[in-house]
């Protein structure tokens, strides 16, 4: 591709190469599906049922209607493999012949569902506009209709015609399918290559056939499998009620009903039909589930907190005088074995009384992990292999989750990078603060109320009574961070951890929040650790700063020393990359330029 081409032409050139990789093409989709044992078993069972239904006459020599009143309610024998029913009819033969109405029903309903569902969903998603709105309304209407009630009417009016009922079921069921198809098409339509195909003059029909249909294949198959599951339930249920297939003729639902009549004296009768029915429903359901997992690999295993080995920590004795918090030998890794990566590498840190310490570094340098480990809040997938922390001279192991939990809020408070995401959208500002006060200090309702107002006042919120009643979505980002700070201070901690507290905020708001933090730490005589990538914040607020690079602490020094005499070349490079010091008209220096020399220097 040459420089002069437009982006769309570029995308077009790429289009043939870059049909999105995530796309489950039918063949690959099936291959992946067959790789799942449960899906394979389900498919095998469905195949057995189909074969049994098709060759019922050949498999069993008995006529399903032949009564033998001398041999009623018999248990399985060589003659009758599954026994006989209350009229002496062969159960196996009836079971095999009863497969047909169920399978025919499934096929009829599925045909209607896929035709209507795909057409509606596709046209609504692709063309949009008033048609889309109409389809959406129609779909939500259909989904609110109790299916069985309509089916009863249909059966009654159409002389117990099962086909009429199944076609109706298909029409009603198309709602779910078209909803899913529509949302997939909406997603696909927005993708660059579709836009490019349109601009290049490809007709709608071509685009739908070659680009969109393959994409909706997976989700549609999932819906069809799940719908087949529902169809079998409804179809056999109707037969169970004595509708659709008139009684002497064999049907699974009818056989379950016959079994229910002799449930007191001959319970065996329920077992063969009940299990065949249950297995068939289960197979369609499992197939749908596996298909869904195959189509969108979203299944995330529940996050289990692994129990850390709690060691008796070696006391930290080398901390300077007036140290309130010291951290030694902190190492955090991710992954296991071959793919293990060290994220934080033997980091030490001392925080003096009432001091503000900055931790500076690029993203991925391990600065956030370092502060999170102090509260035992490491994210899933990371593991701490060593680390000790002393508070007021008492040393605790950082693997001791219970001891760390006791520090949260009361001894160490924390504020977060995304102030809005840090608040529970379902609860008011006041509730957030009240909860923390109640946990740590208790008190009467009025008392807590008073403390909430005082706290909001301290973080310079001018209308605290009103803000306390608001929900997170009703306040601004800056306001949310003030609330976050108020919550961190609610239990009067002596140490405050701030993880990029101003990064997500507007510049003017940033300055206000920084000013607030400075004022609060001074008035409360509180030690603060600020994690930041912004030298401006360090210069503004911190007494000392630690520079982290790829999990290692390169140097820790007073801010004045760092700015004027950086002892490590990386610190110098990082300082140079600070846009605040850039000269107009000159390109901004980047970290990469000095990366290699640094790695050599560190290694």
């Amino acid at each position, binding site marked *: 591709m040459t420089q002069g081409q437009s982006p769309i032409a570029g995308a077009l050139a790429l289009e043939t190469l870059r049909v999105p990789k995530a796309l489950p093409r039918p063949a690959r989709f099936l291959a992946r599906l067959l790789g799942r044992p449960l899906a394979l078993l389900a498919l095998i069972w469905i195949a057995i049922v189909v074969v049994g239904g098709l060759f019922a006459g050949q498999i069993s020599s008995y006529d399903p209607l032949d009564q033998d009143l001398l041999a009623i309610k018999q248990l399985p024998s060589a003659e009758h493999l599954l026994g006989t029913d209350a009229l002496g009819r062969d159960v196996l033969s009836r079971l095999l012949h009863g497969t047909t109405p169920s399978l025919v029903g499934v096929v009829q309903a599925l045909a209607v569902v896929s035709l209507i569902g795909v057409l509606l969903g596709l046209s609504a998603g692709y063309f949009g506009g008033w048609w889309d709105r109409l389809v959406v309304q129609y779909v939500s209407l259909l989904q609110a209709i109790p299916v069985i009630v309509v089916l009863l009417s249909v059966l009654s009016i159409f002389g117990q015609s099962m086909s009429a009922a199944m076609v109706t079921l298909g029409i009603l069921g198309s709602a779910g399918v078209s909803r899913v198809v529509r949302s997939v098409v909406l997603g696909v339509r927005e993708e660059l290559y579709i836009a490019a195909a349109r601009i290049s003059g490809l007709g709608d029909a071509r685009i739908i056939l070659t680009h969109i249909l393959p994409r909706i294949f997976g989700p549609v198959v999932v819906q069809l499998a799940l719908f087949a599951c529902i169809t079998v339930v409804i179809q056999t*249920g109707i037969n*169970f*009620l004595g509708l659709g297939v008139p009684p002497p003729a064999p049907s699974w639902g009818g056989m379950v009903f016959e079994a229910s009549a002799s449930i007191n004296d001959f319970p065996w009768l329920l077992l063969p039909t009940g299990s065949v*029915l249950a297995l068939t429903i289960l197979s369609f359901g499992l197939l749908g589930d596996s298909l869904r997992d195959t189509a969108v690999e979203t299944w995330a295993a529940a996050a289990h907190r692994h129990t850390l080995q709690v060691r008796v920590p070696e006391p930290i004795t080398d901390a300077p005088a007036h140290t309130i918090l010291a951290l030694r030998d902190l190492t955090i890794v991710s992954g296991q074995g071959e793919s293990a990566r060290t994220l934080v590498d033997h980091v030490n840190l001392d925080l003096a009384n009432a001091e503000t310490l900055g931790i500076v570094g690029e993203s991925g340098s391990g600065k956030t992990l370092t502060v999170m480990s102090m509260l035992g*809040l490491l994210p899933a997938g990371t593991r701490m292999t060593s680390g000790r922390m002393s508070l007021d001279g008492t040393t605790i192991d950082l693997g001791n989750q219970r001891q760390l939990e006791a520090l949260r809020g009361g001894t160490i408070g924390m504020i977060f990078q995304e102030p809005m995401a840090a608040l529970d959208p379902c609860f008011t500002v006041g509730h957030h603060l009240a909860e923390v006060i109640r946990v740590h200090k208790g008190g009467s309702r009025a008392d807590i109320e008073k403390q909430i107002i005082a706290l909001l006042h301290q973080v310079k919120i001018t209308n605290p009574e009103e803000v306390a009643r608001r929900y997170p979505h009703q306040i601004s980002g800056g306001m949310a961070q003030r609330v976050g700070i108020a*919550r961190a201070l609610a239990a009067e901690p002596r140490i405050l951890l701030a993880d990029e507290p101003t990064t997500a905020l507007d510049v003017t708001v940033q300055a206000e929040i920084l000013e607030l933090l400075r004022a609060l730490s001074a008035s409360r005589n509180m030690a603060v650790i600020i994690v930041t990538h912004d030298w401006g914040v360090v210069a503004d607020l911190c007494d000392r700063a630690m520079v982290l690079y790829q999990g290692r602490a390169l140097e820790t020094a007073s801010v004045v020393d760092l700015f004027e005499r950086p002892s490590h070349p990386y610190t110098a490079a990082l300082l140079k990359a600070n846009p605040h010091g850039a000269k107009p008209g000159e390109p901004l220096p980047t970290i990469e330029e000095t990366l290699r020399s640094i790695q050599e220097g560190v290694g």
Partner: protein
Amino acid sequence: MLATIRTRLLLSVPLLLIVTLVSFVLNSLSPSDLARTILGADGTQEQYLALRHDLGLDRSILIQYASWLGNALSGDLGASYLTKERVLSMLNPRLGVTLSIMTGVMLVCVSLGLLFGVLSALRGGWIGKAIDVLSLVGLMMPSFLAALLFIMVFAVWLRWLPATGYVMFSQDPAGWLASLVLPILSVSFLPIANIAKQTRDGMNDVLRRDFIRALRASGVPEGSIIWKHALRNAALPVITVLGLVMIGAISGTVFVERVFVLPGLGSLAVDAAQQNDIAVLQGATLYFGLLAVAINLLVDLSYGWLNPRVRLS
């Protein structure tokens, strides 16, 4: 919030119209003729024409429907074609049975579904496995089959609960409850599995969000984080599914009323369908339609109640 309710109520008008119109339209498409069916093979042509006139079948579909609708709006759902009993007086005493079952199903599904969902999100191990197995069983058990198994175990073998029959609440509250336990459990099987699954996905999603970490950092106890904060947020998508699940449970109720010989709307509708008593079937359809509207309204209200964004908009 008010807007949501208004939209829902407005949408319920076409819903009820369509549901009740269906049988009229189908009737005109149907090859079989109602008057002929009622008269049987022996009826003379005069009797047939007279009956058609009596039933109003000689008028056009739209006029038939309009007259049914007009009567329905003034509280008259016509009379049974077979027994001449007023449809309204057949439906009303049966509504209580069906409502009792549906309410029970709703309570059982929401409480057990949420509980199982949260537990399986929090723990893998045997609780997670047990819940996986349970939802598989729920998936494979149509309500009528589950009902028969329950009868076999709890009524025939253990003799703890009655196999069939209904006891009025006003006569014997304990007997009333006993007569409903097995029907409610039979219908609830699949819905519980559905809701537990939704809850588990929701919890797994919510527990990864930032505010959970922030709550932990401020020392809020884990129990409160899980059962108050995470569950409340995870419940929002569950509630939207709950509406579909409960409307699906109407089918289960119809089957199960038959198994347990409960005099509810469902068994009335099934009888009517077997006997081609369209007037009764039409009345039952209207009642089930209203039930669906009530379920959706309830779902909307609880969604708004739980979600401040909707409540305050």
